[in-house]
């Protein structure tokens, strides 16, 4: 067999190993986490884990309800803030902005995507937290449900966490949504405009309808990102292990739980196992959402190719 063919075969195999090996990281990571969480799962009853609201590892209480609820709340607030702002921005960029505006703004959005989480945290601590504190001071006494507060609010809260997360999630939703909107064929747009529809009517009745699956996928990916973010949230959310009853209350999301306690992991029995289970939980949730979103996006990409 000529040398060239041999080289081709060998290099091909090496490359395949690299690819398959990298992909199987997924199984390795998930597997390792599962193995190490097993002791925890086998010892503590599942109901205690998910529904128990006491987190006192030294006494053997590993109720994850508080962190789970905290994570969900922070993520929900983040999405509530991010989704409207992102979709509106994406529509503007895709449908109304001139090429010059797009050329200037789209790179900025990309830049936002690349900023390290810890910097979001810094700005969160310096700007968002005090802002939330003063907001709490004005809104608290009004007694609006979920917006109440005790006498002194530090600002380290679910709301602060949500706002910081929202800024981290903007680029994902905007970028994908903008692309799917632009993908609406020009003829269809022209058909609608030619009938005398305004641009907004065209977007509302036709564009959004066609872009809807893609936007859905974008939002799902954004959710996954917000769910798993550790550093930025850690710095502004207060890290108090209670279930928040108001947006001004602190919380203790799952990533924060893990990050804050890894130092003591080995000193208490089952602690490391519990925390690693928390990590596994994070991974599984993000996995589910990522798979869902990618399935939608792949379907759309196929449509675009044949389009």
């Amino acid at each position: 067999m000529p040398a060239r063919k041999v080289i081709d075969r060998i290099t091909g195999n090496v490359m395949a190993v690299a690819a398959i090996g990298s992909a199987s990281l997924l199984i390795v990571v998930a597997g390792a986490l599962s193995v190490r969480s097993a002791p925890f799962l086998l010892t503590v009853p599942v109901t205690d884990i998910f529904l128990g609201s006491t987190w006192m590892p030294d006494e053997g209480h590993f109720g994850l309800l508080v962190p789970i609820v905290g994570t969900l709340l922070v993520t929900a607030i983040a999405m509530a803030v991010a989704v409207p702002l992102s979709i509106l921005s994406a529509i503007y960029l895709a449908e109304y902005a001139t090429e010059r505006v797009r050329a200037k703004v789209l790179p900025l959005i990309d830049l936002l995507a690349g900023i390290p989480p810890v910097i979001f945290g810094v700005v969160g601590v310096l700007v968002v937290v005090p802002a939330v504190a003063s907001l709490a001071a004005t809104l608290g006494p009004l007694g609006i449900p979920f917006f109440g507060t005790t006498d002194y609010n530090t600002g380290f809260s679910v709301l602060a966490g949500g706002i910081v997360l929202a800024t981290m999630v903007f680029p994902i939703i905007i970028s994908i949504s903008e692309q799917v909107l632009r993908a609406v064929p020009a003829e269809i747009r022209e058909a609608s405009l030619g009938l005398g529809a305004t641009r907004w009517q065209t977007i509302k009745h036709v564009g959004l309808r066609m872009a809807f699956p893609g936007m859905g996928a974008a939002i799902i990916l954004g959710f996954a990102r917000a769910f798993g973010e550790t550093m930025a949230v850690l710095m502004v959310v207060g890290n108090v292990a209670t279930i928040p009853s108001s947006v001004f209350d602190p919380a203790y999301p799952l990533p924060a739980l893990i990050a804050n306690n890894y130092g003591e992991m080995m000193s208490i029995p089952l602690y490391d196992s519990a925390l690693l289970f928390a990590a596994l939980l994070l991974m599984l949730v993000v996995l589910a959402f990522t798979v869902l979103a990618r399935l939608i996006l792949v379907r759309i990409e196929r449509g675009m190719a044949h389009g």
Partner: protein
Amino acid sequence: MDRVTEERAMKGLMIAALTIVVGSLIAIIGVVVWKGLPSLSIEMLTETPRGGYYTSTGGGGILNAIVGSLYLAFGSTLIALVISVPAAFALQDEYLGRTRYAGRLRLALDVLWGTPSIVYGAFGFIVMLYLGIRASLLGGIIVLTLLQIPIMIRAMEEVIRMVPREIKEASAVLGATRWETTTRVVVHQVAPGIITAVLLAFGRGIGDAASVLFTAGYTDSLPGSLFEPVASLPLAVFFQLGMPYPEVQARAYTAALILLVIVLLLSLASRALAKRFRKNILR
């Protein structure tokens, strides 16, 4: 509301939304510069923290974090590069791209791409326990490498996939093997794109905190050996920000500024390369 008014109202909302989004970016850069610039000095950049414990008030700078981050990022990026480049090419049609399990490979890599860095940190922790390594430069590099591989592969893949099939066919028709086509033809087309992918992953490696939190430790000194803890810029910010001593906080802000500047430079470089890439690619 008649339709013209409705459109005007919506446009107003949209511009407001976009202003908030862009405004947040500007606010972030503004705040970091505002806080970090005053503390910026030669001393800051060239000395390690003095006085023993890293939250001490003895003055000094953040050289430990700067160098530490560079070591971590370069180390992990290099290793990740060596694995990712072959892997990215392997996913192309002429190699594994057409097999039954190609879809599953891609999906797995996508999931890994979206996996939070703290999960990688936790996994790294397990690996280190298993291997008997303490929190160290080596630990940090291992975890960052794992974090970067999916990012690099995906970024490279996006670029390689854009190479028009005709180009590869033109080479194959002449009797070239896949390896020859890849190395002599495709690589030239995608080189800038590969570099962009590397820059992107490097940025992640230098800016990520959650993964190195467990695995790289922290220290006041410059990186010694692979097996000693190493400082990093994100952790320099995180650990020193909350301290009630202005000198310590100053180090945190400067570290944040340096981090931001690095990320900005990487982004600019990426963009410049992407433009060149767009010009070179045959359509």
